[in-house]
């Protein structure tokens, strides 16, 4: 199979600016993107730099961008990529932010690791250094952790997250999924502390814009978005949720459903923002004109209705703190 690769090359030592180098390769049908990168490095140009190690999707080293989508190079079939994008494939680092590119496809992930560190990504419990038995945990309790502990910290979700693009303080899908990994673990002793941290506006769960890009790119099926939704529920369940525009927004669901049986976005904004709603009038009018705000009987049924209803039920039984 003949494939053309356009690979992002940038060596800050010698290049003024990045450029794309073209490589034409003959590849086996069962090859993955990492094979292609290796072939370029080993046969054509040894100066190409990228990270890689395990080569079977478990270490998280080789995350790169392929035709705009963040992937693990070692898990991405060339054949499937060609079927999707055609025979020219563009390979880039996870971010092209010049300050973060060390060389070629290698980026400095300091911001990613810093956010991960912020959520105290470790079990907080008294550790028995010489235990004679394990914690007894029923399989059902373990299932609560779901896929959250399969996160390999590759950064695919983090560097695709729309919210981070708009708000660099946002913890991001990886750190939030990690938070859930521990709030869902019955052994952890710091659930409230963790939830208080992610309940903060600006950095936490309320700043996810629900684009769901993290679900789409996660190579391990961790689904950080759903973990963030679980955290929404947990802050109410644990009585941690503070009164703010976001939690009021959640409460607004109740009103909306009670009144109409389905969600009414226009009324929801009114409820969440109160008198501040006037700020949104220009957008509201424009949205209405484009048909984005619908009249109640026109509202389509939301795909995530179950989740929404659960959230409403919980928010109803818990008093919000000021």
């Amino acid at each position, binding site marked *: 199979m003949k494939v053309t690769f356009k690979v992002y090359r940038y*060596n*800050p*030592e*010698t290049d003024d600016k990045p450029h794309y180098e073209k490589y034409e390769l003959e590849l086996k049908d*069962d090859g*993955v993107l990492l094979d292609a990168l290796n072939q370029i*490095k*080993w*046969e054509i*140009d*040894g*100066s190409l*730099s*990228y990270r*890689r*190690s*395990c*080569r*079977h*999707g*478990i*270490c*998280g*080293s080789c995350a790169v961008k392929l035709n705009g989508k963040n992937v693990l190079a070692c*898990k991405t*079939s060339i054949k499937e990529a060609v079927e999707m994008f055609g025979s020219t494939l563009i390979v880039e680092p996870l971010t092209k932010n010049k300050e973060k590119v*060390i*060389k*070629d496809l*290698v980026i*400095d992930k300091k911001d990613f690791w810093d956010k991960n*560190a912020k959520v*105290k*990504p*470790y*079990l*907080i*419990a008294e*550790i*028995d*250094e*010489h*235990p*004679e*038995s*394990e*914690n*007894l*945990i*029923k*399989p059902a309790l*373990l299932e609560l*952790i779901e896929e959250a*502990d*399969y996160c*390999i*910290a590759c950064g695919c979700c983090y560097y695709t997250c729309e919210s981070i693009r708009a708000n660099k303080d946002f913890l991001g899908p990886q750190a939030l999924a990690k938070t859930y990994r521990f709030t869902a*673990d019955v*052994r952890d002793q710091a659930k409230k502390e963790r939830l208080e941290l992610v309940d903060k506006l600006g950095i936490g769960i309320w700043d996810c814009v629900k684009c769901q890009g993290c679900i789409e790119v996660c190579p391990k099926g961790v689904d950080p978005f759903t973990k963030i939704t679980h955290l929404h529920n947990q802050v109410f369940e644990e009585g941690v949720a503070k009164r703010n525009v976001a939690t009021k927004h959640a409460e607004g669901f109740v009103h909306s459903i009670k009144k109409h049986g389905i969600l009414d976005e226009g009324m929801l904004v009114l409820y969440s923002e109160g008198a501040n709603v006037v700020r949104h009038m220009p957008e509201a009018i424009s949205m209405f004109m484009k048909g984005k705000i619908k009249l109640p009987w026109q509202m389509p049924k939301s795909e995530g209705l179950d989740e929404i209803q659960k959230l409403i039920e919980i928010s109803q039984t818990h008093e919000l703190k000021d």
Partner: protein
Amino acid sequence: MVAVYKSDVVIVGAGLAGLAAARELVKAGKSVTVLTKLHPLRSHSGAAQGGINAALADDDDVELHKFDTVKGSDYLADQDAVELMCEKAPETIRWIERMGAVFSRREDGRIAQRPFGGQSRPRACFAKDRTGLTLLQTMYEQCVREDVLMLDEWYVADVLYEDGKAYGVVAYNLRDLTPAVFNAKAVMFATGGYARAFKVNSNAHANTGDGLSILARRGIPLEDMEFVQFHPTGLAGSGILMSEAARGEGGRLFNSKGERFMEKYAPEKMELAPRDVVSRAIMKEIIEGRGAKEDPFAVYLDLTHLGEKKINERLPELRDLALTFLGRDMVKEPILIAATAHYSMGGIPVDINGHVKKSATELTEGLYAAGECACVSVHGANRLGANSLLEALFYGRWTGQSILNDLDKIELREANAKEAETMLNEVKGLLNSNGEEKVSHIRNELQETMSTKVGVFREEATMLEAKEKLKELRKRYKNIKLDDKGKLYNTDLQEAIELGHMLDYAMFIVEGAINRKESRGAHYREDYPKRDDEQFLKHTFAYLKDDEVEVEYAPVKITKFEPQERKY
């Protein structure tokens, strides 16, 4: 100017063993620097799939675990080391569980266990088929919690070692080639395995065995290097691992005639015979022309009878891998597998407290090793599945405690910036070398040679060819040329240094294998098909001297298990 950093202990490698030791030391108030050429979470410990052994079940017994391990080792394991590890196994597993490892559970809440090859009981504790991942993550997380200093993407290229005493390492930052000397009272190597010397292997790109030859170049012997485990079930072509859990959960092997061929080779244990036995059986079928119809270099591993639910519950990662690399869904059809170079039984010789030996009878001071790079030796000639995570975790921690016990008695030998010279010369030499050879070509030829001539089946004549080939490749290595002469993230340079190490330790594998004129565990000689206890119930201790490997032998430590014929 080269910076000199000081700490009580410097640990090279941040997999399970290195991190377990680091946490132990930091908790006790010692200053520790952990250096890794990856990021700790990228370590190959995370790739382990199937399980970690401990006699936890009511009907199991630590004594049985010891016996299975010694028998599995074909009686080459040091039995004092095996006994210690097996006795401490239950505590070790429960300790990491208490720190957060997400083990799969039985209905009553206890840790679940599955059968593994060569084990008398279902003894492998597991987390679906991502056991290594949960253990590595847990260990790393608790190191973060304890504020362990972990420097990632630092390449350690040399050790400070003189008169039997180690006092630091020399390394450079992969990001920009900044060199530094890390001076310490104690140095621990936990650098993993060396199966990258083989073409078809299950190992990470990082497993280039650097730690072993760094020490060998300073005169430290390497032990039992000829014992390389070939895992029976690597995916056809890539060699990527299909965990033994696949057979533990009931997977069956078939040849092209539809015969469940293990009936011929291990009628009692069938697919759950030890790895060396199953690997030879598979390769025999292939060599004798009964390989798969689609791929004559593979046989079938059939899991379809397990059903989708069980496969998703117990082996989701494997299903995903077979889909990615073979395009086959194991729920619907058998997958194609063949033996793949997998685990390094040999390595840096250590006593049961992790002290590196400078000869069969003498220890070094301030130098330690644990995990796959070390040879303690609990696996002897053949490792049983799910004993490697146990070794890394237990001996990593134990070696940390051992360093702690020794530290007050060790005096710091001061290091200075000048000691970075050997490394700096190596780097400079490689960057400036202007030959004609490509690193990747020499590496390919090395891997081809090792796979075809020092593989599952071995014999004198071909191994001598391998020895000659290695000489040639070592000569050609002096004539290499790098494309990248820059300072920034120069992986071209890194691969060249790593190849140098591979060429060095490969000599130990070949020389050890040529000299061991018997068949034992993973080392199978067609010209000497029988185990020879009279001559070879002993460990290989080999030294690098003037570009040659000199082989000596040392006795095996036997406590209570008298060697007997090994049948399954």
